[in-house]
């Protein structure tokens, strides 16, 4: 075990040393640490229930949805690929070393705990939002963190058990997959049925996901019971949930540690998959990684020179989207945008269109931080195409604009029907949405041109998100002023859209030479 502890210790030490070697990276990490620190302090000290005081039932329902979704997605992937805490280096060096597999598993667990920091980081960002809308217990924030840690420690464990069972035969895999999907569809149907009966999103969430039995359900029920104690306090579901999770994690760890283990084969495929995922993340392909590619897609390529890049990207999009330009991003942006406007209290006093626009743009910013154009940088083809760099940039980003237009039309036409909006408002929202998308795309290009390939993708994305928020501040101010002075939602939206358009054109011009040669994007 001492050699494995050496590995963990030395990895951490080298990581810290490597950060100190690069002052720019160090500054970036300091900013991130300060930002996260500020978020944590804010999470603890900010008053809870400031915007409104929603019911604990709704909080429990939301937590249940979150953990059902998280367990469903990670465990389903686990059935396909297995779950692994290990990297290729572990397979080559640790698995073949004279160390018992039980100790190797323990080492994997320790690594996994370190990995939960990323999840905690994401969770921290959601806490202010939750605190604004719910009255939390004084110990609410640590309880939410505890639930995230419990989830992160449980899913690889359960995933490995499920994979060990399903990897024996295709039939078992199929049965378990169908059982998972069947449960998911059943839950979704029950929810939709309840939604259509009550006609109220909150009531439907509470009646389906806060049923008295749900929180006692092993694993996802227990985890959400821990999270729910942030609002509900230390109730019986919490005691059962927390004890259940402790017994599950400690018990299965001890059982695994004492067993005569032979699990290396089970994690080989998962490790390979994980390795590919890391590679994709490094290259900025994390959003397109593991996307299902449709076969037999017919697409006639027209145009030459830089237009061929656009045609190629169009073909790629056709092969990976659900229908035309409709893909997972469309689903997320549309559903979250509309759901947000329903969940926001009337006291906010904003038009539903502004709510949908602001939240969908926020989601777009988070999800479109790494556009398809950046994939081109890792290959030599685009640099060799006989066309000017601005042309290449325009055509390499064209599919993103068209896709944003497609999503924008869908989102705001649906919103128009739901909230009975006028045509000019709908058109202004679509135009603003597309302009925002262009700002995110060209901010991405510009930061890449200015800072090159930064030490860590996470840091690069963080810089980009902060930059996007900062450059849009004047647009938001113009929109607020236009709204106050003219009392017109249309002018407020147009002010925002106009500013974004100016920004997008400016950023395009500033970064137009990125495809001149490899060094201009290095």
């Amino acid at each position, binding site marked *: 075990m001492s050699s494995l502890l050496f590995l963990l210790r030395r990895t951490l030490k080298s990581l810290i040393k490597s950060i100190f070697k690069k002052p720019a990276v160090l500054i970036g990490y300091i900013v991130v640490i300060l930002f996260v620190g500020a978020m944590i302090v804010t999470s603890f000290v900010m008053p809870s229930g400031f915007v409104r005081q929603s019911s604990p039932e709704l909080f429990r329902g939301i937590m249940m949805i979150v953990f059902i979704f998280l367990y469903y997605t990670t465990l389903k992937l686990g059935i396909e690929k297995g779950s692994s805490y290990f990297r290729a280096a572990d397979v080559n060096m640790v*698995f*073949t070393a004279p160390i018992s597999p039980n100790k190797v598993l323990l080492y994997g667990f320790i690594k996994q705990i370190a990995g939960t920091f990323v999840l905690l980081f994401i969770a921290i960002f959601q806490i202010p939002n939750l605190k604004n809308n719910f009255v939390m217990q004084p110990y609410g924030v640590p309880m939410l963190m505890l639930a995230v840690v419990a989830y992160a420690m449980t899913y690889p464990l359960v995933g490995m058990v499920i994979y060990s069972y399903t990897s024996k035969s*295709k039939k078992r895999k199929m049965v378990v997959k169908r059982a998972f999907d069947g449960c998911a569809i059943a839950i979704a149907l029950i929810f939709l049925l309840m939604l259509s009966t009550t006609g109220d999103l909150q009531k439907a969430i509470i009646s389906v996901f806060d049923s008295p039995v749900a929180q006692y359900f092993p694993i996802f029920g227990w985890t959400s019971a821990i999270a729910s104690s942030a609002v509900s306090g230390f109730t019986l579901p919490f005691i059962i949930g927390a004890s259940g999770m402790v017994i599950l994690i400690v018990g299965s760890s001890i059982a695994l540690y004492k067993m005569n283990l032979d699990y290396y084969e089970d994690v080989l495929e998962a490790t390979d998959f994980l390795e590919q995922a890391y590679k994709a993340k490094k290259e900025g392909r994390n959003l397109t990684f593991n996307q299902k590619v449709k076969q037999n897609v017919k697409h006639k390529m027209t145009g030459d020179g830089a237009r061929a890049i656009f045609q190629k990207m169009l073909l790629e999009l056709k092969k990976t989207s659900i229908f035309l330009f409709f893909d997972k991003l469309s689903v997320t942006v549309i559903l979250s945008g509309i759901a947000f406007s329903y969940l926001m209290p009337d006291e906010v006093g904003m038009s539903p269109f502004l709510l949908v626009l602001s939240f969908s743009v926020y989601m777009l910013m988070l999800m479109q931080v790494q556009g398809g154009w950046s994939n081109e940088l890792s290959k030599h083809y685009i640099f060799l195409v006989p066309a000017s760099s601005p042309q290449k940039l325009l055509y390499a980003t064209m599919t993103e604009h068209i896709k944003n237009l497609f999503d924008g039309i869908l989102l705001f036409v649906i919103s128009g029907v739901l909230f009975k909006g006028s045509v000019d408002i709908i058109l202004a929202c679509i135009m603003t949405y597309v302009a925002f998308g262009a700002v995110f795309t060209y901010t991405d290009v510009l930061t890449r041109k200015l800072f090159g390939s930064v030490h860590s993708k996470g840091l690069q994305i963080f810089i980009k998100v902060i930059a996007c928020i900062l450059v849009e501040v004047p647009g938001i101010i113009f929109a607020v002023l236009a709204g106050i002075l003219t009392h017109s939602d249309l002018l407020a939206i147009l002010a925002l859209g106009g500013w974004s358009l100016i920004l997008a054109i400016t950023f395009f011009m500033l970064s137009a030479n990125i495809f001149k040669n490899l060094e201009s994007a290095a």
Partner: protein
Amino acid sequence: MLKVKNLSKKYEKVQAVKGASFEVKAGEIGVLLGPNGAGKSTTIKSIAGLLRFEGQITIDNHDNKSIEAKRVFGYIPESPAFYDSLTVWEHLEFIARAYGLNDWENRATALLERFELDDKKDKLGKELSKGMQQKVSICCALLIDPKMVMFDEPMIGLDPKAIKELKSIFVELKNAGCAVLISTHIIDSIDEVWDKVLIMSKGEIILIRTRDELAASGESLEQLFFEVTDSKGEETA
């Protein structure tokens, strides 16, 4: 030293290896040859203890998955992989600790010098070129002074000097009584050093021949390979 008896491995419906049996003795260099999909990688991974299988594999008379067997077994995988944040030297230090080696520093230094990596010892694994990574992988496996060592496509990415060095290392290992198993597609690369050839096709060991036996037939290793793999293909066609 390495004994493989009735090794079989099935992936769902695909029988990757069917009852393979062979032996590589101490002081012998065995070469595992075979076309793509012959079952070489599955055999290699089974020997390395990474897969579950039917049959028996022993290294130095110990079950291949036992701690005792792993202690004397060196493995150079086809694709080297390193810890992103560890330097070359730290990788060697980890191996020394994992295998409980004493006074390993001099040996590690000598290996790095031999592969012209002595000026790279403070480089991170991820900063190295593919060829250099392969060299470090070889150094890690040889550091433990193995009784049995297995190379999976060891020449890929190596420069001519490193290939020459590796060939002399094969011979040194053999002379020191180590059993060496090399899996490769590049027949020319091992033509000078092999003692026993194991040819696989469609999951089976279809031929085992020693250098002396082949010399007596007057054939080259390459001729023999194409002869048996083509005829096997025709038989099953």
